[in-house]
């Protein structure tokens, strides 16, 4: 632990690199996860440069084409290039993952912070509402939400973010409850800071570590829920190339005739989620020592 602190204390650039190297060596699985996640992010950003074909362009001549040098991952029934669709699909998964996690975290933090900091009746009522929201499984809640809002990219993001709110709010609330009693908060009050600035400038930054851990852990599950929703035909609609929907289009009958249409999108989902899970595990170990095993 002492070694970490001395390294972290250095403000210079090379020491930041040294910190990174230190953690990468100590958490090889986490570093692998970060690398996988980085690859998907780069894929999403540079999609137009690493693909030749428009992911929505159809070409009946290559319907159900076997993977070849021209179409490395084959083509689907409508003759759309699978490599392009998988690469552009990373954009959708990333947008839904980051969007819904961000939205859920925003509302969750606001609710958790106010509820933990102010307490009283407000806290009691908010906790009951959070209880209710947690009594429905993530996918069921998201299904009902999409049914209510109608299928679109934005609505899918909203639908997935709602069930995340109570999870985030719970963690932030319990952290706030603990921080509220700390001497440095008392000191801030003693020097005459108003409650709102204390909450925002002293409590909030200290909940950042558990928030990062939680958000990374939830990122994987939001990608999975999006895939499941789209697989059921209730998530991200056409023409967006969503990994989950690629599987529904190519499901049962393509298992026989075009297995590559089943293998690649699923592998993309699994790898992306696996990467964020590895990263999340390592971040939890680094940032939240109480949970370390």
């Amino acid at each position, binding site marked *: 632990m002492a070694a970490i602190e001395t390294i972290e204390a250095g403000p210079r650039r090379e020491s930041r690199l040294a910190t990174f190297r230190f953690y990468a060596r100590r958490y090889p699985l986490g570093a692998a996860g970060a690398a996988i996640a980085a690859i998907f992010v780069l894929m999403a950003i540079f999609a137009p440069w690493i693909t030749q074909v428009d992911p929505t362009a159809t070409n009946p001549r290559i319907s159900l084409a076997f993977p070849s040098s021209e179409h490395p991952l084959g083509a689907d029934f409508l003759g759309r290039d699978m490599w392009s669709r998988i690469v552009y699909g990373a954009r959708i998964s990333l947008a839904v993952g980051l969007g819904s996690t961000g939205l859920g975290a925003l509302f969750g933090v606001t609710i958790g912070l106010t509820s933990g900091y102010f307490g009283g009746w407000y806290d009691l009522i908010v906790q009951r509402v959070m209880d209710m929201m947690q009594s429905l499984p993530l996918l069921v809640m998201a299904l009902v939400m999409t*049914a209510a809002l109608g299928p679109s990219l934005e609505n899918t993001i909203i639908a997935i973010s709602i069930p995340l709110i109570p999870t985030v709010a719970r963690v932030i609330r319990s952290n706030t409850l603990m921080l509220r009693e700390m001497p440095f908060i008392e000191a801030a009050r003693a020097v005459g800071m108003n409650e709102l600035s204390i909450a925002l400038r002293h409590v909030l930054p200290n909940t950042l570590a558990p928030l990062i851990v939680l958000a990374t852990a939830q990122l*994987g599950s939001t990608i*999975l829920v999006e895939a*499941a929703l789209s697989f059921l035909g209730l998530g991200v609609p056409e023409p967006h190339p969503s990994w989950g929907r690629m599987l529904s289009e190519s499901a049962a009958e393509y298992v*026989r005739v075009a297995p590559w249409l089943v293998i690649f999108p699923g592998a993309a989902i*699994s790898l992306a989620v*696996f990467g964020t899970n590895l990263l999340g595990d390592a971040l939890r170990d680094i940032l939240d020592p109480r949970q370390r095993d």
Partner: protein
Amino acid sequence: MAAYLIRRFLLMLLTLFGISIVIFALLRIVPGNIADILFSSAGMINPADKAQIEKDLGLDQPIVVQYAQWIGGLVRGDLGYSYISEKPTLDEIAPRLPISAKLAGMALAFAVLFGIPLGVISAVRQNTPLDYVLRVVSLSGLSLPSFWLGLLILMVCVRYFGWIPIYTEPPKTWWNELLLFAIPAAAVGFRSSALMMRLTRSSMLEVLRQDYIRTARAKGASYAKVNFVHALRNAVLPIVTIVGIEAAFLVGGLIVTETVFNIPGVARFLVEAIRSRDYPIVQNLVMFIAVCVVSINFLIDMAYLALDPRIAYEK
């Protein structure tokens, strides 16, 4: 103790009441009701007919009255009629229920049978190659979408056995049924077993550090007895909690897996009902799922009391 139970039970009812409002409200903010959909698909617009349909379905009533009618019906056991098949909702749901229940039960059994022993082994052999392999396997269990796992299993069956294990007709013998359900149950249960394995591992690691374990080893208790009896008994409490949380996740797994394997259970029925905007089915099914999850959590709280005499609720 009795006071705690009563308080806990009342809270449960309050939670369910809140959920019923949320479900009801959500399903009514949709622009366009079933009458609009029926008419747009039929392509004929006769305002009088439409008004008649809305009246028959009770859609012309104020929303509060509609809600009161629904809850009143629930209490009396009258769940209304499906918009699509026009059969009583209960008759639509009831025959599908045992199918999903069997699948969920088998998936949970699979999860416990694999998750807990492997978690114990992983903890006992902490930081050995075996531990690393088991940890990566469990993490991949949390990363694979269960519908994809199901499709992969289908693919292997087709390729190597020339047989598609999807549901086509009700199985005749219990052996056939077991065989037919085992594969989807494994696809659903893989995720839960992964989660249980992770939790068992971390919980066991905590217990294995304690003094009484060292004492047990010192007095010469066998390796298996120390790990699986002395340690696991104390490590099992957080695992019981996860069984409750997993019960909720299982529903999600069932929804996609029943779709992949064409199993006519309630979970797939929910998706069909959502697609066709069959409100009575959707709201009753979602309510039913909420009741299941909330009661399972209630039972788990009770199991806590029974399992750990150290926990006492005096408030």
